[in-house]
């Protein structure tokens, strides 16, 4: 089986890798590039734990072949904090206790950031619909939504 050479930019870093054609972007992020923040929940696009953005658009990295990343810009959870400075969404998730086991958290943060990049003042309804593809079995979502709306308010004030 021939491996494909793929050139991408991942969280601002030019990145090249070799991959077999059946591997998903999630497989390569986690197993080849050691970027294990993106989680594998369902592998069928239902849970959102593997959320990343591709050219600014929110996608499930389990629903994309790694070879499809050629020439595209990927943002993962690893690029969200600036060194030790957490992104306001990350801080608000901690303040509001918007996580328990934490498995869904990277995906929720990436998805919430994609929302706020597009819509700085979402309504609660808009936030809930946008995040409907991110499953959380711990929080009941309420604290997640409060954290997202609070982070949005802080970002607007900056």
């Amino acid at each position, binding site marked *: 089986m021939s491996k494909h050479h793929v050139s991408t930019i991942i969280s601002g870093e030019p990145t090249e890798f070799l991959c077999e054609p059946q591997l998903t972007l999630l497989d390569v992020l986690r197993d080849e590039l050691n970027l294990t923040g993106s989680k594998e929940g369902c592998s069928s696009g239902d849970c959102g734990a593997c959320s990343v953005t591709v050219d600014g658009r929110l996608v499930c990295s389990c629903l*994309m072949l790694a070879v499809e990343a050629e020439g595209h810009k990927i943002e993962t959870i690893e690029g969200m904090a600036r060194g030790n400075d957490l992104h306001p969404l990350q801080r608000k998730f901690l303040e509001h206790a918007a996580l328990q086991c934490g498995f869904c958290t990277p995906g929720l943060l990436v998805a919430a950031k994609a929302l706020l990049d597009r819509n700085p003042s979402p309504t609660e309804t808009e936030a809930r619909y946008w995040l409907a593809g991110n499953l959380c079995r711990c929080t009941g979502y309420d604290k997640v939504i409060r954290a997202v709306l609070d982070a949005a308010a802080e970002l607007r004030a900056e």
Partner: protein
Amino acid sequence: MLDYTAPSTVEEAVRILAGAPGTVKVLSGGTDLLVQLRSGRAKPSLIVDIKNIPGICGIRERDGGFVIGASTPAAVIGECDALQRAWPGVVEAANLIGSTQVQGRASLAGNLCNASPAADSVPALIAAHATCVVAGPKGRREVPVESVITGPGRTSLSPGEFILEFHLPKRPPRSSDAYLRFIPRTEMDIAVVGAAVSLTLDAGGVCADARVVLGAVAPTAILVPEAAAALVGRKLDETSLARLDQAARRACKPIDDKRGTIEYRIKVAGVLARRTATIAYERAGERQ
């Protein structure tokens, strides 16, 4: 063993698709194909990714209508204001496919060629009189969307053929459309019933032309001319809605499954057709 290629022209894609031995799968957004690869339901020897073909991801206006590239993500369709104004039903149907994440990849061509009876965008495209351009070894042909699906998981495309783009026609004044899907929750589910209605009114608000399509109540989405006939020649009133309801119910040939019984789906199809027609009628009245 699986291989992958991403041709950058239509001609190259056709040549590869027509000449490849074994099972070949066309990759558009991949939101169905990758799940099938993972489960083992699809075992292709070659995946042909068509997204590098220029123009296949994008929307452009032409002759007063729209050309939507086959692999345009549903999210991009939802962000096109001009398309939203002219074809709100097509846009709302495309925007019901999966989550925000799935919307970032899922395409009209994939939704059509996956050929699920419950596909959301298909009834709306059929109601809209949409056509698609199919590229293949014998050149290109333009066909109505309803001629593409022949049964669950089956299409009329020949080996080597793939969909290049969709065409939505120019709208006369006082025209609009709508799509409603019934699911037991508010998001992230598969249609129990889908209903699409597209119509045109005359200056007096009388329905001059209509198309009614139902999804998830037969092996394919079904165009129901009897339901459209119930609307044409009248303003939308209780008489036409009752006839529409009856015609829609009569056209259903659903299955019993965990999402709904035959009896339930038939009943819901009538109710959903009424509600969808009412929305399309109100929208058309606002488009002078």
